[in-house]
C-alpha cells in the first residue's frame, strides 16, 4: 500500500497541471504580443533582430505553455510585422540571466518569482503574467475578463529608462499601484 501511495505521489509530482481559463489564456496570447510592439525602445530589446517572447512555466504546465507558443507563432507566421517573433519556452527552474527574452510571460508557479522580476527589471524586459496577483510581485501587465476585458499595468514596476510605451497605450490600460495592492 505504501508503495502504491509513493508511486502515486511521484506520478503526481511529475505530470500535474493547473487548470487555466482557456479564454483568458487566448486573450492574453492575442493581446500581449501586440503590447510589446508599442514600446518605443523595443529595438534595444531585440535578440538577433527578433522579438523573443519567453514563456516561463512549471514543468507540469509544459503542455499549456507549448499551446500558447504555437498559438502566437501561428498568429505571427504570416503577419506583416516589423520584427519576427520567436517563442522561447523555459521552465521556472531553468530561468537564469542567460535566458534570452524581449518579453516574459509567466504561467502560475508555487515558487518565488522575485529573482525573475529583478532580472527583468534590470534588463528592461517587458513582463506579463497570467494571474493579476503577480503584478504585486513586480510584473508589469496582466489581463482580466471583467465586465469588459481589462489590461492592468502596475506603473510602479515600470522602469522608464528601459521601457517607454507610446502614450496612447496608457489610455486603454487600468493602473494598479501599491495603494491598490
Amino acid at each position, binding site marked *: 500500500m505504501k508503495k502504491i501511495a509513493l508511486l502515486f505521489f511521484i506520478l503526481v509530482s511529475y505530470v*500535474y*497541471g493547473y487548470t487555466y481559463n482557456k479564454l483568458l489564456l487566448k*486573450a492574453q496570447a492575442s493581446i500581449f504580443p*501586440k503590447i510589446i510592439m508599442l514600446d518605443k525602445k523595443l529595438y534595444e530589446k531585440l535578440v538577433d533582430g527578433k522579438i523573443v517572447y519567453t514563456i516561463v512555466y512549471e514543468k507540469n504546465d509544459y503542455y499549456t505553455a507549448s499551446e500558447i507558443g504555437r498559438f502566437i507563432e501561428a498568429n505571427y507566421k504570416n503577419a506583416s510585422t516589423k520584427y519576427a517573433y520567436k517563442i522561447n519556452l523555459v521552465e521556472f527552474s531553468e530561468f537564469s540571466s542567460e535566458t534570452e527574452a524581449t518579453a516574459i510571460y509567466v504561467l502560475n508557479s508555487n515558487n518565488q518569482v522575485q529573482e525573475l522580476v529583478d532580472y527583468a527589471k534590470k534588463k528592461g524586459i517587458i513582463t506579463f503574467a497570467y494571474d493579476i496577483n503577480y503584478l504585486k510581485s513586480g510584473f508589469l501587465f496582466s489581463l*482580466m475578463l471583467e465586465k469588459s476585458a481589462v489590461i492592468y499595468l502596475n506603473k510602479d514596476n515600470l522602469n522608464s529608462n528601459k521601457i517607454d510605451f507610446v502614450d496612447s497605450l496608457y489610455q486603454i490600460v487600468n493602473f494598479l499601484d501599491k495603494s491598490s495592492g
Partner: protein
Amino acid sequence: MLLMLYLTSLGAQSNDLLESISSEMKQFNEVATTTKQNENYQPYIISVFQGEELEKLGVLNLKEALLLVPGIDMTTDNFNNQTPIFRGSNSLSYGQSKLFIDGVSVNNLFFDAYSEYLSFPIEMIKRIEVVRGPGSKTNGINAYAGSINVITYAEDFKGFESSDKLVFKYGSSDYKMGGFFKTLKTDELKLFIDFFYQEDDKKLPSGPDGLSRGVLGASNIPLSRSGDAPVWLKDYSLGLSLEYKDFSIKARMLEHEKGSAYGINLALPQDSDRVKLPSYYLDLDYDKKIGDFELNIDAGIKYDAFDSYSKLAPDDLNLSNIIFYDGIYGEHFAAQRTLYHSFYIKYDGFDKHTITTGYRLIREETIDMISKLSNRATGDVELVDYSDTLPFFDKNAKRNIFIFSLQDEFWLNNNLSFIYGFNYEETSYKDAGVEPRVSMVYQLDAENIFKAIYSRSHRNTSWQEMFTMNNLARVGNTDLQPEIVDAFEAAYIKKISNDSHVKTNLFYLLNKDQIYNSSTSPEYKNAMDSDIYGFEIEYKGNISNLDQLYLNYSYVTGESYIKDEYRSESLSNVAHHLAKGYYIYNIGRKLSLSTTVKYVGSKSRVSGDTREKVKAYSTFDTAMRYKNIKHNFSLTFSIKNIFNSTVKFPSAINTYLQDYEQERRTFLVTLKKEF
C-alpha cells in the same frame, strides 16, 4: 538616424496596433459575456458550471448537476415529477423556476415544470448557468425563484469550436445511454445536431401507498400496498440548430417516458404503467445589428403533453358500493400548444446608456384531451371514454399573454453601472401588471465587487392549477392570482486570483399569494404569503496547482402566513442548511480523481402533519477519469452515494405514509470519444 526611422514607423504602426488591441478586447469581452466567464460582474446572483468539469465528477445528468448549486434542493411528487426548489420557495409548486435550452424556454404548459429535461445527459451540455432570484434584467421571460440556462455544444465561437462527440454510458438499474453531437460548417451556414437515447429499469422502495391514508375512502384502506415504485426511464432526444447569416433555427424533439412511480391517484401502480411527457419546440430567430441599433425578432411553437396510462386503483376497490374487481384503469391525455413571438430593439447610441425595449406575445392552449376510465357505473375494467362527460381536464383551456418591457443599462463610470426597467404583463386571466427592477454593480478594484438588486417577478398559474377537474386530489381554479415575489439581494465577491473567488449574497424574498392545495383541500388556492431570507456563500479555487476545489453553503429560513387560518408557521418541507462541494485532483492531463459531497439538512412538516421531520442526509460520490490524448477518448468510472445513505424527498401530507426514498449506492461507466 535608425532611432528616428524606428520612431516614425512606430507612430504609424501604433494606431493600427491599438485599434487591433481594442477590437480584440471587445471580441473577447463578447465571448466572455456570452459564456458567462465574467459572471462575477453581471447584475444577478449566478453560478456557472462547465460540462467538462461536471463530466470529471461523474455527474450523470442535469438533475445531478443542479444539486451542486448553492440554495437548490430537489423535490418530487406521486408521479415522480421532480423539481428543483430554489432557496426554499414554495416546494409544492412547479413553475417557480424556468429552464432554457439554448435560450428557448422549455417549461411544459401542463405543470409549468421541466422534469422531462432533468435526465438530459451531462455529455450533451456545454455549460449550465443558474441564476438564483428573479434576476435583474427585463427580457419578457422572467423567472420567479430562479432560472437555469443549459447551453449545448451548438454554441461555438471562432477559435473555440467544440469537437464532435460520441458517448456511451452504462450504470446501475441497467442504465444504458448512447448519444452523439456533430457540427457541419461552411462559410455562412452552420448546422448542429445532437441525439441521445437512454433507458433504465429503476425501481424504488415505497409504501404504504396513499390508500393507507384513506385517499380512496376508509373502506379501501385494507387494499393499501407497499412495494417497488416503477420509476424507470426511456427517452430520446433529437436537437437541431441551424445558423445562416442573421437567421437561426433551433428545434428539439424530446420523447420522455417513465414509470408511473407512486400512481397518479396515489395507489401503487403496475411496473409497466407509464407517463409520457413529450416536449417539442421550433424557434426561429433573426438578429441584426444596424449602426447603434440591434434588432431581435423571434417566433416559435412548442408542444407538450401529459399522457398517462396506468392502473389507478387496485383490485376489489369499492367506490360508492360499486366494486371494481379488476381494479380501475385510466388513460389521461392532454396536449398543449404554445405559440410565441417577440420583438426587441437595443440602442446604444447614447453615451453610457444601452436601452432595450420590446414586446412578447404568447398564445397557450390545450389542443387535445382524452379522459378514459374503467366503467364508473358498473365497475367493469374496460375503459370508457369520459372525455366529454367527465373530463379530467378542461379541453378548451387557453390563455393569451402580452408582455412589454423597457430597460436602461447605465454605466456611470468604469466601476459603477446600473440597470433599471420594468416588465408590464397582461393575460386573459389575472394580470401581474407592472414589475420594476433595479440593480447596481460596483467594482471597487480588481479584487472587490459589490452588487445590489431589487426585482419583482411573478409566476403565472400553471395549467394543472387552473384547469384540472373531476379529480379527488386536484381541483383547478381559474380565479387564482399569479404568485408575486419582491426580491431584495445584495452580493459581495472577493476575487482571490484570476481563477478563484469567494462569493456571498444575502437575500430577502417577499412572496405573495403562493398557490397550494392538499388532499383535504384539493382546490388550488392563493393560500399563503411567505417571507424567506437567508444567505449563500460559495468558494471556487484550488489548494495547489494540482487541483480544483468548489464549496458552497446556503442557509434559508422564513415564515408562511396561512391566509384562511389567520396564522403563521415556519417554512415547511425546506432544508434550512445545504452544503455542497467537490474536489478534483488532476493527475496530469490524463487522469483525474474527484470527490463530491452533499449535505441536505432536515425538513419540518406542514402544520397538521404529525410525522417526524424529514431526516438530514449526506452523500459522498467519487469518480475517476482517464483521458487518452492520442486517441481522443475518455473513460469515467463513478460511484454515487458510496456510503449507501438513505435519501428521502418528502411526501405530501395524507398521501404516502413514508417519504419517497431515492436511489442508494449506484455506479456509472462512461465512454466518450471526440472527433
